[in-house]
């Protein structure tokens, strides 16, 4: 009659996804919290840059043959003076922290004059250190590993929870306002669920990508390119794992939320899913130095998005391990979507009391 074009599954799901995105972008709370998250990421990267570059040069006076020696040492501000006495004077009145003067006795040909304490940096700079062979050259600075653990854990946890909760609320809103019956009579339930998962997943990916880009930009602007290079592969894998891990969590949120009919009940019915999201966050912070726990985490589908990038960052994963873990994650995502869609379509029309899980799975 009016030029129906009979949208298929994908077109219907996309219409639903588009609405989800449009409504979310209209929410002030979402925009403000995203802004705060971005600022926090940028702030911590910049702060890290300021602390790491804060090594002020040392004021040193030098005279005679010692001048050329001093010029070979890094991070010194050299004041050239005419005599040893002039150098002593500068040390005494505090204009310089130490002075390098020629000495016939010393094997290096220079000696250090200082007021009341040994200037360690200068001593180290002048000594010839023994050769050091690191047996595990890839091992990470434990502090850096800890921060990486927190970063992966918190970003996964925050995004999964923010957008998971959004899906849950959107599912219950449709049930509570009863519009779901009109939707169900128009498009397939699977298209409806797929659209919700797709829309919120896209928003979550966009947020994650923006955070990753912001962090990378911040690191390179503040001259921490080395850090960026060591984070690069793990961040890339994190994004890949997050994409599939989030779809799984989104399906779980949609399915569990469909069991209830009121917004007040969303929190209690989705709390088991929230536990699943929180667990990897807690585990990675507590056990980021425990290879056994990390290995297990990197294969369990719910914690793989945090565990595997962490192991890649630590250089503890062989090349095939992320691929195997990804296959496990993909398979479990497919299974969860199938079960979730079943619960969702069975529970959607049953308003009122909470639907029992066994009943939702039955037909």
């Amino acid at each position, binding site marked *: 009659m*009016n030029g129906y074009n009979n949208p298929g599954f994908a077109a219907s799901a996309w*219409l639903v996804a588009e609405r989800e995105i449009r409504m979310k972008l209209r929410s002030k709370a979402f925009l403000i919290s995203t802004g705060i998250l971005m600022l926090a990421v940028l702030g911590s990267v910049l702060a890290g840059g300021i602390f790491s570059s804060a090594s002020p040069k040392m004021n040193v006076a030098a005279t005679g043959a010692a001048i050329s020696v001093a010029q070979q040492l890094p991070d010194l501000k050299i004041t050239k003076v005419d005599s040893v006495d002039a150098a002593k004077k500068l040390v005494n009145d505090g204009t310089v922290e130490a002075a390098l003067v020629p000495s016939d006795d010393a094997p290096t040909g220079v000696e250090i004059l200082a007021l009341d304490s040994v200037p360690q940096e200068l001593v180290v700079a002048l000594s010839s250190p023994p050769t050091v062979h690191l047996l595990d050259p890839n091992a990470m600075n434990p502090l850096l590993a800890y921060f990486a653990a927190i970063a992966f854990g918190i970003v996964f946890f925050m995004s999964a929870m923010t957008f998971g909760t959004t899906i849950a609320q959107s599912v219950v809103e449709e049930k509570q306002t*009863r519009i779901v019956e009109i939707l169900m*009579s*128009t498009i*397939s339930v699977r298209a409806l669920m797929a659209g919700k998962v797709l829309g919120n997943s896209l928003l979550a990916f966009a947020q994650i990508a923006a955070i990753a880009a912001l962090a990378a930009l911040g690191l390179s602007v503040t001259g921490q390119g080395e850090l960026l290079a060591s984070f690069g592969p793990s961040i890339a894998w994190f994004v890949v794992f997050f994409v599939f891990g989030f779809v799984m969590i989104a399906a779980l949120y949609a399915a569990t939320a469909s069991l209830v009919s009121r917004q007040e009940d969303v929190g209690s019915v989705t709390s088991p899913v929230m536990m699943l999201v929180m667990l990897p966050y807690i585990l990675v912070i507590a056990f980021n130095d425990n290879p056994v726990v990390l290995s297990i985490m990197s294969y369990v589908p719910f914690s793989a998005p945090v565990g595997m990038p962490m192991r890649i960052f630590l250089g503890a994963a062989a090349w095939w391990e992320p691929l195997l873990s990804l296959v496990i994650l993909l398979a479990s995502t497919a299974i969860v979507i199938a079960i979730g869609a079943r619960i969702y379509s069975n529970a959607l029309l049953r308003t009122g009391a909470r639907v029992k899980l066994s009943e939702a799975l039955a037909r």
Partner: protein
Amino acid sequence: MLEVEQVNRSFGAKRVLRDVSFTVDGGRMTGFVGANGAGKTTTMRIILGVLSADSGRVALNGSDLGDADRRRFGYMPEERGLYPKMKVAEQIIYLARLHGLAPAAAQKNTMQLLERLGLEERADTAVEALSLGNQQRAQIAAALVHDPEILVLDEPFSGLDPIAVETVQGVLKERAAAGVPVLFSSHQLDIVERLCDDLIVIADGDIRASGSRERLRAEFGGSRYELHVSGSAEWVRGAAAVEVVSIDGGRTVFSAAPDAAQAVLRAALDRGPVVRFAPQEPSLAQIFREVIQ
């Protein structure tokens, strides 16, 4: 033509529909009446594919209904609802797009329909900010926006103010006149009586009667006559082949075959002046009572 054939459905051990069969013809308004819990909503949900039937089929013009056909249905569920935070026009356009309309057609239909329903000034208001009556109008717009080829409306008049009832009746009649089969349920038997061409009566999941209003009237209304004479009408009790329903002074209602009724009229004229004699049209409420007994 929409056909429902031998549809059965149970919820757990409770059988809510038993071999439900009926047809809804194009261009006719079909009223679907029954007590609460008789199975009206379940039947409509099965027609729309929102619920599945345990057995039986729903066919449109002879072929089984698929999801693509159902997109061309206009459905108004008993439990109303729209997205509270979306604007009226935005929401109706969204639903039109889900039904498969192109963006331009969705926009055009929405604006025309909002104007027809007197909602054009509210197009950019969020649904939650509308009065209840206007929310109902928006709901009707949602069911009609895609120019459906079949309309299935569950209690379309409940909660409407009298003016809105008039508007909606007008819109539905227009659609039926354009050849669209319209199936609607209602508790308000007076509206059904005024509006419907065909009637389906359901009780305890059984279709007790279906057909045109006139046929049901003839079948279940019996043949009742009303007689008003100036004297007492007690003598009618003695007339041959007549069953008296009530006598109140000179007024009486009795049921009889046409010949016997004419004989009563002649007898009455012999006795004195007759103020009134007429066949009594049974109201829908009477038919309904008769049918579900």
